[in-house]
C-alpha cells in the first residue's frame, strides 16, 4: 500500500538527502573544486528546508490580488525572504572559495587536498 506523502514531506526528506550528499562529498572527495560543489549541494538542501518551513497546504503565492484576498490561504513569505538572503550569502562564499582556490592552484598546481600539506581533515 502506498503511504500518501504530501509535497511538504517529500521536500523535507529531499532537503535532508541533499544535505547528506553534500556533506558526504565534502568529507570524502579530495579535489577542492569538488568539495566546493559539495558545499553548494548542501547549501541547496538547507535552503529548501528553510523555504519549506513556510509551507502552507494549498497555499498560493503571498501576493494580494483580487483573486486571493485571504492571508490564511498564502504561503508564509518570511522564509522566502530569508532564503534569498541565504542564497546571496552562499553565492558570496562560493565566489570567495573559488577565488582562494585559484590563488592556491597558481602556487601549487594541484587541487588535490591530500597533496596539499596541512590540509588534512
Amino acid at each position: 500500500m502506498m503511504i500518501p506523502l504530501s509535497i511538504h514531506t517529500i521536500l523535507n526528506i529531499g532537503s535532508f538527502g541533499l544535505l547528506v550528499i553534500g556533506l558526504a562529498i565534502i568529507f570524502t572527495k579530495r579535489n577542492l573544486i569538488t568539495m566546493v560543489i559539495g558545499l553548494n549541494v548542501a547549501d541547496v538542501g538547507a535552503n529548501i528546508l528553510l523555504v519549506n518551513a513556510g509551507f502552507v497546504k494549498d497555499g498560493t503565492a503571498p501576493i494580494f490580488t483580487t483573486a486571493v484576498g485571504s492571508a490564511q490561504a498564502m504561503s508564509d513569505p518570511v522564509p522566502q525572504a530569508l532564503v534569498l538572503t541565504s542564497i546571496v550569502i552562499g553565492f558570496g562564499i562560493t565566489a570567495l572559495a573559488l577565488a582562494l582556490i585559484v590563488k592556491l592552484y597558481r602556487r601549487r598546481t594541484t587541487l588535490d587536498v591530500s597533496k596539499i600539506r596541512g590540509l588534512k581533515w
Partner: protein
Amino acid sequence: MVNPIMLILIPLLTVFLINLVNIKWPKFSAGLSFLAIALTTGMAFTLLPEVMQAPIEVVIAGTKAPIGINLLIGPLGLMLSLIILVTSLLVSMYSFSYISDERKGMYSGLFLLLIVGSLGMVMTGDIFNLFVFFEILCISSYILVAYQRNEHSLEASIKYLLLGSIGSLFLLISIAILYRGLGTLNIADIAARVGELPPSTRIAAAAFFTIGIGVEAAIFPLNSWLPDAHSSAPSSISAMLSGFVIEVALVVLIKIVFSLFAFAALFWLLAVVGVVSLLIGEFAAYRQENIKRMLAYSSIGQVGLILFALSLGTEAATRAAFLQIINHAAAKSALFLVSGYMIIRTGSYQIADYRGIARRMPVSGFVFFLAVLSLVGVPPLFGFFSKFSIVMAAVSSGSTGATVLTGLVLLGTVVEAAYFIRVLQHFYQREPAKAVTAARSERGAGAESSIEAPIAAMLPVLAFALFLTGGVLLLGSITGLADAAVQDLFARLVSVLA
C-alpha cells in the same frame, strides 16, 4: 542619548567610505578606520550608565518585535561590545605601522567588517540577523586569514572556509527547525514559547545550533581549522580572532543555550567538551615549535576553560568566565602583537630562533613575560583573579563531577605554565640565536642596537600590559559590569524554566 544602532552603523558605513577614499587616497584608510572605531568605542562607553539600569531595545523600521527586527542591548551585550571595541581600537592602532603594504584600504575595510559582525552578533535580538552577522564575521575573517597570500594562509583560509560554511549550514538548519515549529524569529519570543515544541524538535534544534556556532567557537572536535587560521593570519588579525572572535561565538552559544535549550545534559556535555578542549589545546601547544601555532593552541585551551566555566551554570562561575574572557582578550592580544614584530625582525616563526631576543627587544620581551604570567594566572595580575575565581566557583558548586573536571583544569594550567616558561627561557638566554644577531630594524644596524618595534605599535601593546597589571584596581567596576551581565544571562534562564 546615543542610539545603540550607531555602534553597528558607524563602522559599517565607514567600510563603504573607505572603499571610496581608497580609490584616490589609500593612505588615509587606516586613519579613517581608527577614527570610526574610536568614535564607536566612545559611544559604547556613554551607553554604559543607561544600560546598567535597564536594557535598551531598538525597534528597527518601526515594527515592534516579535514581528519586526530589534536590537537588544543589555549589560551582557554591552560588556562584550566594549571588549570587542577596546581590543580592536588598540589593534587598529598597532596596524598603522604593522600593515605597511599597498593593500591597507582592503585591510581596514575588512577589519571594520569583522567588528560589525561581532557587534551585531552580541546585540541582535533576532535569530536570523544573528545568522547574517555571523556570516559577515566569518566571511571577513576568511579573507583576512588569507591576507598575506602565501601558500600557508591560502590553505588555512580554504580549510577555515569549508569548515565554517558547514557550521553556517547547521545554524541555518537550526533556524529553519525553530521557525517551522514556532513561526517566529525573535529570540525572546522563541524563548517564551520554546516549551510548545516537542522535545525531539528542541533537541534537534539545539544539536544543530551547538554544532553550527561551535565551529566558530572552536569547541573540540570542531576546532581543527583554528591553529592554521590563527597562525597564518597577520599577527594583528590573530590578536582579534583569538582575543574576542572565538569568545563572542562562545558567549552567543551559551546565551542561546541558556534561553532556548536549557537541558541539564547539554550543560554537562559542554562542560566535559570544554575540559577536553582545554587539555588537547594545552598539550598540543606544548609540542609546538612555531610561536604563533603555540599561541593558537593556547587559545583553544583558554576557550575550553571559558566554556567549562560558563557551562557550570552557576552565577559565580559565569562571572568568573566573563573575567577570564577579559583577561584572555588583553593577554592573548598582547602576546600575538608582540610576536608579530618578533617575526618581522627575525624573519622566523621558530621559538628556537628567538634565543636572547629580550636583550634586543626589552620592552616586547617584558610585555610577553607579563602577558604570560597573567594568562597562566600568577598573582597579583588580572589573570590570577579570573582563574582563581573559576576554580573556586567550580569547587564550591559541590558536585563531584565538577571537582574532577577542576582537577583536570589545574593539570592544563600546569602544562600551560610549562611551555610558556620554556619560551621565556629562550627569550632571556645569554647566547643569542643567529636570527637575533642578524636582525636589523629601520633605525640602525649593529648587533647590540635595539630592534624594538616602532612606538605606534608598542603603545597599544603597553596599554594591554598596563591593563593586565593595573586592571586589578578596576576590578570593582569590571566585576560590577560582569555581575550585571550575569544577571542579564540568568534572567533568560529563569524565564525558560518557569
